[in-house]
């Protein structure tokens, strides 16, 4: 059981939880993830580490309410306990030796892009951050990015936050103006990562995408998180979660991620109804 130390609503659908997990905090690095269960009969879900404090022994995760489990998580308050919190899992983001990078975050993916950006910034790498949201209401972590990046390029679909347009528009503008990067790191919804990877491929810039497929154990046992990368089957939990974005079969990943859509919709609706009844 792990105690929730802090909770912040970042925007209407996105919540931050700071969790007491000293063993995980001791080892966590940007790019890694944890597996949690909200309650006794809960499912195991992976969430990427958004921040950690080794001294305090805390790990922060940020999640968007998309289904029954995240809905349940969203009702937990400081002082409540999570049933399980295991990690850190996966490989950490490779930041060594990179002098100039661009981190591209989309939506709640920015929660994962943030610790990576911060790590680059603190080690002295030139880091441009492009963050995109649908609109101003859904924008998160703007200040945190501003303080931990060399340059920040906020974007929104409707122009209510930063510039109007997609993250690919901002990145394209940078690349067209002659900017070059040792690496682009992209974290966000699959179609957005696919679009960014297609763009950087044109410019021949190495791009790393952080994948978040369906997982159960997260430790290299079930094989549910498999992806095709460069024609080979890879497991996001032990081989990833970051892969060469130019080699990932995104269409397959998009299809596989939709496998339980119907089940999840039912589960989500009945969970919401349950909370409504309780109220």
């Amino acid at each position, binding site marked *: 059981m792990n105690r929730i130390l802090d909770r912040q609503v970042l925007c209407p659908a996105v919540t931050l939880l700071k969790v007491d997990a000293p*063993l*995980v905090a001791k*080892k966590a690095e940007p790019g890694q993830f944890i597996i949690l*269960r909200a309650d006794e*009969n*809960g*499912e*195991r879900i992976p969430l990427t580490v958004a921040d950690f404090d080794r001294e305090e022994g805390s790990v922060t995760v940020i999640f968007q309410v998309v289904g*029954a*489990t995240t809905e349940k998580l969203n009702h937990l308050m400081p002082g409540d306990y999570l*049933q*399980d*919190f*295991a*990690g*850190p*899992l996966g490989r950490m983001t490779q930041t060594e030796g990179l002098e100039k990078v661009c981190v591209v975050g989309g939506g709640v993916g920015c929660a994962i892009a943030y610790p990576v950006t911060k790590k680059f910034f603190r080690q002295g790498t030139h880091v441009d951050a492009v963050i995109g949201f649908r609109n101003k209401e859904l924008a998160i972590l703007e200040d945190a990015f501003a303080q931990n990046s060399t340059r920040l390029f906020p974007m929104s679909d409707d122009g209510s936050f930063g510039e109007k347009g997609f993250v690919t528009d901002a990145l394209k503008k940078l690349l067209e103006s002659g900017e070059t990067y040792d690496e682009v790191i992209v974290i966000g919804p699959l179609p957005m990562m696919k679009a960014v990877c297609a763009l950087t491929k044109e410019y021949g810039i190495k791009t790393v995408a952080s994948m978040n497929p369906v997982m*159960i*154990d997260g*430790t*290299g*046992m*079930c*094989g*549910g998180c*498999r*992806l*095709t990368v460069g024609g080979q*089957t890879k*497991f996001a939990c*032990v081989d990833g979660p970051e892969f060469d974005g130019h080699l990932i079969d995104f269409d*397959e990943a998009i*299809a*596989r991620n*939709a*496998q*339980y859509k119907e*089940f*999840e919709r039912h*589960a989500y609706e009945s969970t919401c109804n349950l909370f409504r009844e309780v109220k």
Partner: protein
Amino acid sequence: MPNMRMDRNPMPVQDADIRRCNFDEVALGYTEAQAIDEAQRCLNCKHKPCIAGCPVKIHIPEFIAEVAQGNFEAAYQIISRDSALPAVCGRVCPQESQCEKMCVRGIKGESVAIGRLERFVADYHNAHGEKAAPAIEKNGHKVAVVGSGPSGLTCAGDLARKGYEVTVFEALHVAGGVLVYGIPQFRLPKEIVRREIEQLKALGVKIETNVIIGRTITVDELMEEYGFEAVFIGSGAGLPKFMNIPGENLKGVYSANEFLTRTNLMKAYLPDSTTPIRKGKQVAVVGGGNVAMDAARCARRLGAEVTVIYRRTEAELPARLEEIEHAKEEGIVFKFLTNPLEILSDDEGWVSAARCQKMALGEPDASGRRRPVAIEGAEEIIPLDTVIMALGTSPNPLISDTTKGLDTQRCGGIIVEEETGKTSREGVYAGGDAVTGAATVILAMGAGKTAAAAIDEMIQTK
């Protein structure tokens, strides 16, 4: 005078038509009268070949003699000298290729039903036996066990009985390893696993769940920072193998590990489980081992018509005989000498069929089994909506990647000295599937036992 009847007492089972709709245990267990009658079939022969067939060398004729006298608790005490998990082994051991294979009664007639008697004795003890654990004097030495499956639990139990302070680290949220996530409820009720684990805890074994050795804590840290004098790695088999054929990542294709984990660990078969599972109508399981049988029978219970696709013939099926029989009784269809070439999909990317190659048996291969060879031009399309790949696993890389100086085979299995379980790292031992790749519960237990003895000797002679 022994009971000279040729055939063994049949195991009472749930009716096939009823059990294929539930997850309750299939085999119901002997009554006391059946157990005594079966035990009296043992000749208590002089050379006791059955013991040689047992990987943990249970004193089989001795315990059976007690059963024949109706001294069931005494029989349990004899078994528990050598086996930490009799209620489990009585249910999942492949007895027909071990102890029972060696039984003299099997030469003319059926061998004594040793496995069923073991199960009876363990269940009797659990229902009636003394619960209080014996007081054990601690010897002050600390040993870490990685993984709470059969090898880890056995190693932990043996060491705890010798006075060691044992901590078992488990990556998942419950202890039991494959006994919990892999083997289904209808073959091994989880209450039994839980009880066996409670007995270990009563011996003083600590179990830490949600700790992934190699990530949360490394093997080096266990020894240097946490003060464990020895580490036993029983982390089990790892990533599922696939066939590398087109269509394997379509929607509706599972590894057996994933399908079984969703079903057994996450209880996806219960209506209130929050973990989803695809309840297919036409399911194919590719493979012929125990895991394939488990997956097929789970899919059947979730409401599917199930076909097992296997590239050799029935004679080569590696699964336990009883599982194959039970699967057939439950209406599972076997397609032998058939090998998938491609999984086909519908317009939305879901599995729709498997295109399969018909095979014939050729010359024996390295394993001594006749190698299946393709029959040119003979193909078959099997309509399906779900495919479960049960082709074995390759070892998990988490520990070997993060432990310096731990030598592994090219395929990833940890290299050990067979007589001791010693690895290339001082103080580090290993056993079970992490060493051998996918094998049986009892072999893993045997390895845990061997390592426990070697760890004890290493520490005592230090």
